[in-house]
């Protein structure tokens, strides 16, 4: 078991494509770290560099106390679970799981007992003599896990291990992997582009974009204290609404609406104090907007409703806010329905607003987020 | 050098060495020899003659005739192989899943050694006992089994010897085309049908354009093979009667073995090589590339 340190790691591919820029962070011993980010942001690249399958262009990578930049994957003492599982098709489940131990030249009795133990943990005992072709998707996934855990490596690396499963199985395996990791207490890096997986599984989550690390933090902190506009919009679903606004003293002007910001906000964002005519980007999450007709508040705005998606447990209300919309820069973000510039509010199903109405919206002003318009970083 | 590069080189090296020794070096030797007058029958004659061998080859009537025959043979064989093979593939794909046994039996000639195919067709065509003519009499196409002297008439022999080639490789064309046809997305054809295209129009506007790369591969591979043919014709006629079926490769062989004229054989061999490369490159540029551009 060991921690992993990345120091100014860069990756430039053979075609001169600069895939990773100055990656810098630590993964603590026993920690469950998740890499998340839009497609093509370099998650797999980073993972494969840690695995040793991809060379490191510059920087320093440490596993435990060793610098491993030039060490072969086989000597790094790490195990990997691939998206396609990469089970050896000509070997049975037992032989698949035993293979890494055979390569390590363990005695046969030791191999047998370890394979049986891993199979028991993963409930594969009845399948040990089958070939992978005869297994279901979920079973294959477990065999891939078995091949990884049987070695008791210093770290597990997993690249979207659940993306080939159907939704229900994915939820189940998500829980199983997380609890297995807690039980074995092995440092784990888990790549996904599913933010629900990221938020529920990770001790900490590293958010990446365009080969640049945006923020590494606990899921709670990513949600509550995003450090920039991208992280703010990327974490949470539906996304945080982001608009340009002007702050004057304690009054925030958002398009044609104005309201007062409570004192608490200025306590944890002291640099907002004494603002006069200050341009900011303001962010508010859909869950922090309510129908003022049901739950009035001191900070209220009004906006025309363009669309209402009634989901039963809640209603997603699309609003046309007359302030300048801010593009968070997530290439994967496409409005499923309606205009991407529309603000989305999460109303109680009791709300009676309908498309075409002018709705009064109560904003939970203590939960507002503020960012600098030029650097797009959070204002504290 | 990284470990990865070392690995790539180690794995590649034996094949590079083999191809270097057995292909690149001989080709070099071929070109080198083509500038000398070498006599293998009376040894130790080896003198530099510059381009004289090429001049001789290009002005020789027998060389020119054999080159022309190679073209006649290749075009004739390729045309029929392609027509029969493509029709067979269309038939098989029209039969959908029921063509498995047909394809299996049809593929049979593909496994027959060229020497056997040549012998067999010689046996079918040869005067007096060739069963083909008796069959034609039976069908009422000719009156006398000796009416057509397939292999001994100088006018037709170059075409007669290609029957064996056609028989031997139609199935290659058919199988490759069939694979190409089955890869055409069904919904494209159905969309065309909904747009009101009849079977002929669908074939012309959908099937044929999509089959272009497959057709290109078949034409290149088969065209080159037909032009290189030696064994099939050799076993049937040895180039006779009176050189009437002597193709270019056979001409080179004769000059090498019978006349021991290594220099001139090398010059012709080099010319042959260059022409084949040019043809293949041309076919590649004209037929294959436009589809992939």
């Amino acid at each position: 078991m060991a921690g992993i340190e990345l120091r100014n790691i860069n990756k430039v591919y053979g075609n001169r494509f600069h895939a990773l820029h100055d990656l810098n962070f630590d993964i603590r011993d026993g920690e469950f770290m998740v890499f998340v980010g839009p497609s093509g942001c370099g998650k797999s690249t980073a993972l494969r560099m840690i695995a040793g399958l991809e060379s490191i262009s510059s920087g320093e990578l440490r596993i435990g106390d060793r610098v491993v930049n030039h060490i072969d994957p086989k000597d790094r003492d790490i195990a990997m679970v691939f998206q396609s599982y990469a089970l050896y098709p000509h070997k049975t489940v037992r032989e698949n799981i035993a293979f890494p131990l055979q390569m390590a030249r363990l005695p046969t009795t030791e191999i047998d007992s370890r394979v049986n133990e891993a199979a028991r943990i993963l409930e594969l005992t009845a399948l040990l003599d089958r070939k992978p072709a005869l297994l279901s998707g979920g079973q294959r996934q477990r065999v891939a896990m078995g091949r990884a855990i049987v070695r008791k490596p210093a770290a597990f690396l997993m690249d979207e291990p659940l993306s080939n499963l159907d939704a229900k199985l994915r939820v189940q395996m998500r829980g199983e992997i997380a609890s297995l990791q807690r039980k074995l207490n092995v440092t784990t890096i888990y790549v996904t582009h599913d933010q629900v997986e990221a938020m529920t599984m990770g001790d900490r989550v590293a958010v990446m974009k365009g080969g640049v690390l945006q923020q590494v933090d606990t899921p709670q902190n990513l949600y509550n204290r995003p450090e920039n506009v991208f992280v703010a919009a990327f974490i949470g679903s539906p996304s945080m609404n982001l608009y340009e606004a002007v702050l004057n003293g304690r009054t925030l002007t958002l398009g044609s609406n104005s309201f007062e910001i409570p004192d608490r906000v200025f306590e944890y964002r002291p640099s907002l104090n004494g603002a006069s005519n200050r341009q900011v980007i303001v962010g508010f999450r859909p869950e922090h907007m309510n129908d003022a007709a049901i739950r009035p508040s001191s900070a209220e705005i009004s906006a025309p409703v363009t669309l209402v998606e009634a989901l039963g447990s809640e209603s997603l209300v699309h609003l046309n806010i007359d302030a300048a919309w801010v593009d968070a820069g997530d290439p994967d973000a496409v409005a499923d329905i309606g205009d991407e510039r529309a603000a989305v509010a999460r109303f109680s199903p009791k709300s009676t607003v309908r498309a075409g109405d002018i709705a009064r919206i109560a904003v939970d002003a203590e939960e507002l987020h503020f960012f600098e318009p030029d650097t797009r970083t959070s204002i504290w | 050098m990284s470990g990865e590069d070392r690995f790539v080189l180690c794995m590649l090296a034996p094949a590079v060495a083999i191809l270097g020794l057995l292909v690149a070096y001989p080709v070099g030797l071929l070109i080198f020899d083509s500038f000398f007058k070498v006599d293998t029958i009376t040894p130790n004659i080896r003198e530099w003659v510059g381009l004289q061998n090429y001049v001789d080859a290009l002005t020789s009537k027998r060389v020119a005739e054999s080159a022309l025959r190679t073209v006649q043979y290749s075009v004739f064989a390729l045309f029929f192989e392609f027509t029969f093979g493509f029709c067979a593939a269309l038939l098989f794909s029209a039969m959908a899943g029921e063509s498995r046994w047909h394809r299996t039996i049809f593929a049979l000639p593909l496994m027959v050694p060229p020497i056997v195919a040549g012998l067999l067709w010689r046996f079918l065509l040869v005067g007096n006992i060739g069963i083909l003519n008796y069959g034609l009499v039976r069908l009422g196409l000719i009156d006398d089994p000796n009416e057509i002297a397939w292999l001994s008439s100088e006018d037709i022999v170059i075409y007669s010897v290609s029957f064996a080639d056609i028989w031997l490789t139609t199935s290659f064309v058919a199988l490759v085309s069939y694979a190409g046809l089955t890869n055409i997305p069904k919904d494209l054809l159905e969309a065309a049908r909904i747009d009101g295209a009849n079977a002929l129009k669908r074939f012309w506007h959908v099937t044929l354009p999509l089959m272009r790369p497959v057709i290109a591969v078949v034409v290149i591979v088969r065209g080159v093979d037909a032009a290189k043919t030696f064994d099939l014709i050799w076993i049937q006629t040895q180039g006779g009667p009176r050189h009437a079926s002597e193709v270019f490769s056979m001409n080179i062989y004769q000059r090498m073995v019978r006349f021991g004229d290594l220099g001139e054989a090398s010059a012709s061999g080099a010319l042959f090589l260059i022409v084949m490369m040019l043809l293949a490159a041309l076919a590649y540029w004209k037929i294959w590339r436009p589809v992939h551009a």
Partner: protein
Amino acid sequence: MHKARHLNVSGILINGAALVLVLSYALPYMYLLMTSIKPAADVQQIPPSFFPAVLSFENFREVLRSSTLPKAFVNSLTVAVLTTALSLAVAVPAAYVATQYRRRITTLFLLFALVTRMVPSVSLGVPLFQLLKSLGLLDTVPGLVLAHTSAAVPLALLLMSAFFEGMPRELEEAARMDGCTRFQAFRKIVLPVMTGGIAVTALFTFITSWNEFLYALLLTSEATKTAPIVIAEYNSVYGLAWGAMTAAAVLYSLPVIVVTLALQKQIVGGLTFGAVKG
């Protein structure tokens, strides 16, 4: 539904045409088989008959009793087996890195192999004769093996590249994560996974060598004559010994046909995606 399809007119036409086509292509070889089991005297009867009047293995007995043909078969087999082994030994690793570790040099290499397939064997035969003569390998098994290898390696490279193209790269990576060096991953995982493709390629290289005629004609004289040379010689030596010739031709071609028919499915796959003729 199914019945109705069988009964429609175009269906009958298509099936009929296919049957005629297939039969007309199968007939010549059938005739060869039929002729080989006729008594030698009946082979050249006028007019010829398709089926034998009496069954006789006289022709087979004659060719097997002669000393040349059995020896030629042994030569052919030896040369083909060695050619296959040598070609696979060099082509399989090369095709593997050429497809899985793509870079400029491997692409150039594959292109070179492709171009090599266009070289007329007679152009190569002339200098190969020189080369083998200077190495003292004319009319020897190793000499002929080398010549056949020059034709078999490009074929094996193209076929194996097509097979490796379909293999996921992760298999090798998983093996390396499990503690293998690149060589071990190749030997312990990649090769066993690819046995099907290797077998098909082996069959094709074997057939290439087994069928080869021109190099054998140029590069052998007495000691290492292969089967096709001996069969071709029935022409001159025995005049027109059609009976013996058909029997020898059947012995020479039937084993390959039987094996290929048995492996039909894999072979057609190999053929069509390599788009190459053996």
